């Protein structure tokens, strides 16, 4: 099966995923609207902060709006197109990979695109409000912003896969896996520039929130192409790493066999 077939397959998977997610459009759009509202309320906290303090170690309200927009886009796109990743640990635990493993394709893409969370659409819509209204960016900035935030989205998906893959080694740890991913998201949503060397080392390596928070904001704010390329490189590296962790974990897959208590 060649590259063309792989592209057709990927497009078909995504189209199917979105069709399923929006099979009940009113429910889907309401969920998205609630997520949009949720993000706006979240930003209100920072509005109150910046009404009382002029900056946060050099970051002003516009920087923070830029950050929230990038994280919202990255996360929203990730769960809209690859929402199945959030259920990977559960699938590992209860044998949900069987169907995907019985097909003549790599199981990871179909696992990821097995589910779409329409709330992601609300996240993505709120990104435009953060950028264009609160960060004061213009339409001309959008292509660069979207490129950077989309590269960050790949890092989000890779982290989602890596954390959920812990279930291969820690049976019955689906909640722990999800909790770890939530921690990652939490760090993404907060300004990371005041952190010291050790914290940054962690954010650029094992817990790559810097590729979703700090680095994209600096790349867009300073128009720094090198940093944008670093994000793209980071996205590729983390995607490869996540695929490798998944492949390694797959060797331990027990297809939901209840005999396996704690290996």
């Amino acid at each position, binding site marked *: *099966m060649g590259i063309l*077939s792989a592209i*057709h*397959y990927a497009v*078909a*998977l995504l189209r*199917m995923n979105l*069709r*399923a997610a929006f*099979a*009940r459009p009113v429910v889907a759009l309401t969920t998205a609207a609630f997520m949009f509202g949720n993000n706006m309320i979240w930003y209100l906290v920072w509005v109150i902060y910046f009404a009382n303090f002029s900056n946060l170690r050099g970051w002003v309200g516009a920087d923070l709006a830029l950050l929230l927009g990038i994280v919202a886009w990255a996360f929203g796109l990730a769960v809209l197109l690859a929402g199945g990743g959030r259920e990977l640990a559960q699938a590992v635990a209860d*044998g*949900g*990979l*069987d*169907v995907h*493993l*019985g*097909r*003549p*394709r*790599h199981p990871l893409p*179909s696992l990821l695109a097995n589910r779409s969370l329409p709330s992601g659409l609300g996240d993505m819509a709120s990104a435009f409000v953060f950028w264009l209204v609160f960060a004061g960016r213009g339409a001309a900035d959008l292509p660069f912003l979207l490129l950077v935030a989309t590269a960050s989205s790949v890092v989000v998906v890779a982290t989602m896969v890596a954390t959920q893959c812990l279930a291969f080694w820690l049976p019955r740890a689906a909640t722990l896996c999800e909790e770890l991913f939530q921690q990652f998201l939490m760090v993404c949503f907060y300004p990371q520039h005041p952190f010291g060397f050790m914290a940054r080392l962690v954010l650029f390596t094992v817990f790559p929130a810097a590729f979703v928070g700090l680095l994209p904001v600096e790349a867009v704010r300073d128009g720094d192409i090198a940093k944008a390329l670093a994000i793209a490189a980071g996205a590729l590296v983390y995607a490869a790493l996540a695929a490798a962790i998944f492949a390694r974990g797959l*060797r331990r*897959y*027990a*297809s939901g*066999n209840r*005999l*396996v*208590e*704690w*290996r």
Partner: protein
Amino acid sequence: MSAIRVEALSKSFRVRPAPGRGWARLRAALRPPPAIVVPAVRGVSFAIAPGERVAFIGPNGAGKSTTLKMLTGILHPTGGHAEVAGFVPWRERRRLAGRIGIVFGQRSQLWYQLPVRASFDLLARIYGIGRAAYGERAARLAAIFAIGDLLDRPVSALSLGQRLRCEIAAALLHAPSILLLDEPTIGLDVTAKAALRDHLNALSRDEGTTVLLTSHDTGDIERICERVIVIDHGSLLLDRPLAALRDAYLRRRMIVLVTEEEHAAIDLPGVAVAAREPHRLTLEVDTEVTPIERVVGAALTRHVVRDLVIENPPLEEVIKAIYRGRPEAAAGPGHA
């Protein structure tokens, strides 16, 4: 050449005993108890010729699904060897997937919210089936499994029986030469089971597909298969043609009669009363001595029958009978 060849296949799982509660749990977390090895499949060997229809049966936890998953490449064996359609499943899983169809009775590959046809379209992409070949194949399977009018309905709107027919058709879209079915009739009512069995027979007859199915419904075995492999506690217990198994273990049927009369009686050779209650008579019939239709005919002639149920012997009874026929096995620990 065999469609499926299995030699001394085994699979064990390493298990750490579950800790107790409270302090014991904490102690176990800090210093885990040593793992123990639990064998799920122990040195199973068999071969299946192209076009054969084989039932792979056994009670819950016997190791049949684990064996099937090794044959599809989903699980890696601990030992032994297997070839399916000429491929070693766990080494060539993706290449093998194009040659086999898999149906897990309790797992769906259809998208719940969307029409069946949408899942078929995606599967055509997954298997790289050309547009013309796909159209032809889908139409053919729709005819065999009588699902033409179901294709445009959302999967969520189908009954379990309808969904399973669609599942099997989906697994056959790429025209596999081998079909592996894991508990295909589980949860189905009598009518849906019968329909599904008829469709599988039609498929096998028309296309010569090799069928290996796991089940613990003796009805599946009798209606679909020509050979039976029985597995229990991970070991092969019996591998025989269905006719031989039927003669030895499946010749008895239970008939439950609900009659207008308070006390009913059927007096025929080979027919014994298993239970008697007012308006209800349960008979055990040796079908070698008296065919089932003769017993039913006698019941309808002599009594006003409100309800009549013919039951297969439960698989557990068949397995017990097999053990009874193998004193050396029956004497083993935990196999009585």
